[in-house]
């Protein structure tokens, strides 16, 4: 009940602030989309719908003076939204397909709405912080509970105990890793926390990183380990720093190993022996099914087509013998195969084009050399978006979250950033392979 009051009061504060600055309605929408409060509190009213209607009306009242060019991602996302609507019209199972379409389209449209409503640096960074704040509520709960000993696959105490969005352990582990570079940007470069910048904020970042890593361990999700490896590889700048951080992480792991959860450790160790692990074998089998399905149905089967999946794979039983197992109705366990079977070749092409275009665009901004100091923030912000999208591309290769808001919010913020860059004429500055402003580990 106390938690419900807290959430409702905050939502009320956001709603009232929205009348002063309508962009806040959209920030509230982002916050509720990520936090998903209905899963753990009674909100009395549907917050997401209220903020959704509010930002739609608020759009007509925002300051539209900042009108830069929109990136390719924006148009590709519109095309993807149209395509998923088409495949839902022709879906093999229309009723559940429309039910999935209903929430999937809301996630996808975040990318389209973001550059239209979020136009200034302060708005872009506040939207980024709102998303981080929502993620961190889930990550901190998981991290602290894992530290206190309630870890283990499907046993970890989470804010959402349902098996969807951040209640699903692999998605939570992926989000936990992604929030580390997000937090680093906020404490190091954000104009919002400029006045608080200092040792205390850095200590808060260190504490949060411990909770995030502990949350990954607590989930026992191998996706988290792979994403964390990708963070060490792509999130840290310069070869020397990379080696230093990776060596430090490996050293720390060996020191901390005896104190870590046994169940998590034994599950992580199956990454090397995936051939005999049933969970990994299921994934490989369902991916093969997706490829076979799309060969027969090049335009895809529409949402929820994986409920018709039928797979046979070999895995070790309790006695260690390799046996043949047949299963039906298995989830995709990968964004790439999820989109491939559901949306066919055109949908897969659009989805990959969105990701590649987002990666290229954020990398391009992170390598710019802005002439003015007040434009310097675009370099680390472009970098952190690049790192977050890269981590998503790695981690989500093993989780079916292609239509969840996670990546669409980063792509939306990239669209807003791109628009800001164009409106300020920063693109005319020199482009260099070596950035002038070092983003440090974003």
């Amino acid at each position, binding site marked *: 009940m106390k938690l419900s009051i*807290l959430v409702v009061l905050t939502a009320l504060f956001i709603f009232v602030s929205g009348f002063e600055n309508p962009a806040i309605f959209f920030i509230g929408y982002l916050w509720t989309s990520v936090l998903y409060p209905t899963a*753990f509190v009674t909100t009395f009213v549907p917050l997401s719908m209220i903020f959704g209607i509010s930002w739609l009306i608020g759009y007509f009242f925002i*300051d539209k*003076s900042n009108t830069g060019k929109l990136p390719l991602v924006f148009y590709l996302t519109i095309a993807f939204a149209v395509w998923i609507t088409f495949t839902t019209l022709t879906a093999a199972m229309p009723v559940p397909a429309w039910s999935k379409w209903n929430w999937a389209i809301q996630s996808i449209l975040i990318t389209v709405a973001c550059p239209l409503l979020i136009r200034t640096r302060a708005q872009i960074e506040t939207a980024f912080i709102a998303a981080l*704040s929502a993620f*961190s*509520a*889930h990550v901190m709960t998981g991290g602290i509970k894992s530290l206190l000993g309630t870890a283990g696959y499907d046993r970890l105490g989470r804010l959402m105990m349902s098996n969807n969005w951040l209640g699903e352990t692999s998605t939570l582990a992926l989000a936990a890793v992604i929030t580390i570079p997000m937090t680093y940007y906020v404490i190091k470069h954000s104009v919002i*926390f400029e006045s608080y910048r200092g040792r205390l904020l850095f200590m808060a970042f260190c504490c949060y990183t411990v909770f995030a890593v502990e949350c990954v361990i607590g989930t026992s999700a191998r996706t988290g380990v792979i994403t964390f490896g990708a963070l060490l590889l792509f999130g840290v700048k310069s070869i020397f720093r990379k080696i230093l951080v990776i060596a430090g992480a490996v050293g720390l792991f060996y020191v901390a190993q005896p104190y870590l959860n046994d169940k998590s450790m034994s599950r992580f160790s199956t990454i090397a022996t995936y051939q005999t692990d049933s969970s990994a074998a299921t994934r490989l089998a369902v991916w093969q099914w997706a490829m076979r399905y799309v060969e027969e149905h090049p335009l895809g089967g529409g949402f929820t087509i994986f409920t018709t999946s039928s797979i046979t794979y070999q895995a070790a039983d309790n006695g260690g013998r390799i046996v043949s197992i047949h299963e039906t109705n298995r989830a995709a366990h990968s964004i790439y195969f999820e989109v491939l079977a559901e949306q066919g070749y055109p949908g897969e092409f659009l989805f990959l084009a969105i990701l590649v275009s987002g990666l290229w665009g954020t990398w391009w901004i992170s390598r710019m050399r802005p002439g003015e100091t007040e434009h310097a923030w675009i370099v680390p912000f472009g970098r952190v978006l690049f790192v977050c999208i890269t981590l998503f591309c790695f981690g989500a290769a093993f989780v079916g979250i292609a239509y969840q808001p996670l990546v669409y919010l980063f792509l939306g913020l990239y669209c807003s950033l791109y628009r800001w860059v164009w409106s300020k004429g920063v693109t005319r500055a020199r482009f260099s392979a070596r950035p002038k402003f070092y983003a440090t580990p974003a």
Partner: protein
Amino acid sequence: MIDSLSVLASLIVLVIALRRLLTLEKKKPSKARQGHRS
């Protein structure tokens, strides 16, 4: 208890950020428009 504390911490961060946004956007609306015109 842990759930409430985690959510509370995250909400404090959000409210601080929103208040700062309102202050920043209140301060220089005219300057932003001038910049756009030039």
